[in-house]
């Protein structure tokens, strides 16, 4: 299998879907510009031209409605937000309309729009350009919310989204963009609601969403050196959420650490911890721990930014505290971000 970078896998997924389905188009600020959303829309633009890959004025809320209205009469739009933080402006259309459309209009019609939002971590992007909105959107029934960390999942989830009937919010972490992985050339759909076991283990379960799936895997490397065998799960989609796989793993290991790029309170980490309290309470050998951004807006200064985000080291540390291994973690592992210097 070829190895592709995350952004290449996204690009390939989009292009292949567009080849098969003429109703698909891509729209959003900058999708047709020389940078093509970190390269993800360049090939589609080259291949399908301005009719199917086009720039829009700055109107997040209206354009969300535009996408829904085109979907209502048969199109399959892909809407791109260069930063997922801009989607707050479209929250009404996303939550009050897209999520509820099928249900409140009696189940006969649906609006299968794929909304891509990029989490812009790195280089001090600060309070309004590096949040992760997945927990917020996943609170509301009617949407699918996916957080792929790996290239093949990114491609596979796009394929599924562009064949389904549900509005999908796909959150891509920019820090994943340069990561490489095996990606099937064909269009292999990845189901929503099916977690991926990234590594099997005995002592503790780490569930990591989005970039934190990758970081959890790196944490498990550290843990292995410390003699701890961690099972690492990537939910891939957080709505629907694969409760079964998570619960089975926690029941097996008896310990749980949840790592996430969104805040702890009322977030993904809370949900997974709650699952343990509901379904694995009598299997727990230790307290559950959440490893998330600190409870403040994202700061800019490098020293603060480093303290703000979870890293493999902080995940591993949390795991060690849970398994009560005595040795404090000496080694600190920098995050994947380190080399990023733009373009933003």
């Amino acid at each position, binding site marked *: 299998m070829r190895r592709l970078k995350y952004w290449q896998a996204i690009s390939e997924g989009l292009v292949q879907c567009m080849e098969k389905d003429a109703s698909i188009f891509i729209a959003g600020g900058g999708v047709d510009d020389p940078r093509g959303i970190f390269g993800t829309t360049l090939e589609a633009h080259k291949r399908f031209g301005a009719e199917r890959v086009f720039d829009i004025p700055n109107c997040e*809320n209206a*354009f969300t*409605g535009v996408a*829904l*209205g085109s*979907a*209502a009469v048969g199109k399959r739009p892909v809407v791109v937000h260069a930063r997922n933080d801009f989607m707050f402006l479209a929250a009404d*259309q996303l939550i009050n309309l897209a999520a509820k459309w099928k249900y409140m209009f009696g*189940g006969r*019609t649906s609006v299968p729009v794929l909304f891509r939002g990029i989490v812009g971590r790195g280089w001090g992007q600060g309070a309004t350009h590096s949040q992760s909105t997945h927990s917020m959107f996943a609170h509301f029934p009617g949407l699918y919310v996916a957080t792929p960390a790996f290239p093949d999942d990114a491609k596979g989830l796009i394929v599924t989204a562009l064949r389904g009937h549900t509005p999908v919010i796909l959150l891509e972490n920019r820090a994943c963009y340069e990561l490489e992985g095996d990606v099937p050339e064909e269009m292999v759909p990845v189901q929503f609601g099916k977690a991926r076991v990234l590594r099997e283990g005995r002592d503790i379960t780490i569930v990591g969403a989005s970039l934190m799936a990758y970081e959890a895997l790196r944490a498990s490397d550290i843990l292995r050196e410390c003699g701890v065998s961690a099972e690492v799960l990537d939910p891939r989609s957080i709505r629907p959420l694969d409760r079964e796989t998570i619960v089975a793993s926690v029941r097996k290991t008896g310990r749980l650490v949840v790592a996430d790029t969104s805040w702890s309170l009322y977030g993904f980490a809370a949900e997974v911890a709650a699952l343990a309290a509901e379904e694995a309470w009598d299997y727990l050998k230790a307290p559950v721990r959440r490893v998330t951004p600190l409870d403040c807006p994202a700061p800019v200064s490098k020293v603060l930014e480093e303290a703000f985000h979870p890293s493999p080291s902080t995940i591993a540390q949390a795991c060690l505290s849970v398994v009560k291994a005595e040795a404090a973690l000496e080694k600190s592992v920098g995050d994947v971000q380190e080399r990023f210097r733009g373009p933003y």
Partner: protein
Amino acid sequence: MTTVSNDQLVAMLRAMMRIRCSEESLAKRYPEGEMRTPTHFSIGQEAMAVGVCAALKQDDVIYSGHRCHAHYLAQGGSLLGMVGELYGREIGCARGRGGSVHLNSPEVGVMASAAIMGETIAVAVGSAMAFAMDRSPRVAVTFFGDGCVEEGIFHESLNFAVVKKLPVLFVCENNFYSVNSPLRLRQPPDLAIHTRATSYGLPAQQVDGNDVVAVYEAATTAVHHLRAGNGPYFLEGLTYRWREHVGPLFDTDQGVRSQRELDFWMEQCPIKRASARAQASGACTELDLRRWWKEFGQEIDAVVEQVRNSPFPKPENILDGTY
């Protein structure tokens, strides 16, 4: 001056009468407490819905907001589906899930009505965009109130439609109120709403919204413009709602709208005016009118009867349609 035939006039008049008769009947029954859904009656505003929809073809699409009964019926949505929805029955057009504010009937092009102001303005633009991409002659219409003009999405939508030259007709039913807030305290005084549209460079026109023929003619011009690929069009109709903002009652005792104002507008009743015109041109007689009122009265009674005998949704199916 008028271009409509007697047949067309009668058809529009009858459409308005049917809407009025149905809504009046529902308003009367509303206090019985069986329609458990906040209901915004269109009574008094029927000419906009009927005049515009008469200018459309079956495969065009319309969108509406919270005050959607007239639009839904004018475009051909089934009365049974509407009444069923108000009574919360499975037979309702939204299977009892949506309520009065979410009427839809995709079969006849009533794509969606939504309770959040301004939402469907953008959505209609999106359907128009799809039509333009397909080089189809279909057009999209969005009905909204004067209050929605204040929402940012209205402007974003206008701008987008103009920039992309989309076949969408913006229809503003200016009834001078947003709930209890009068227009003059919400928008720049002395600047008619349609002039707001002009600043985006699209043709915009104000029309007597209680004159169904004038509405029809303006809409016909507009739809020609759209189908010719000339981009969007804006229509503002001046009209008035007779009842309270939401619910079946009159509200002139509340201290916001005066009885004098209401009387003035009831005098301008679109049905009264169309009836007079139809009789004057010999399109119908007083007797016809009485016959039609009775016909529609019987229809709505029968539909209500049918609905009340039809089953509620099953609680065990409550999740149906979420995905």
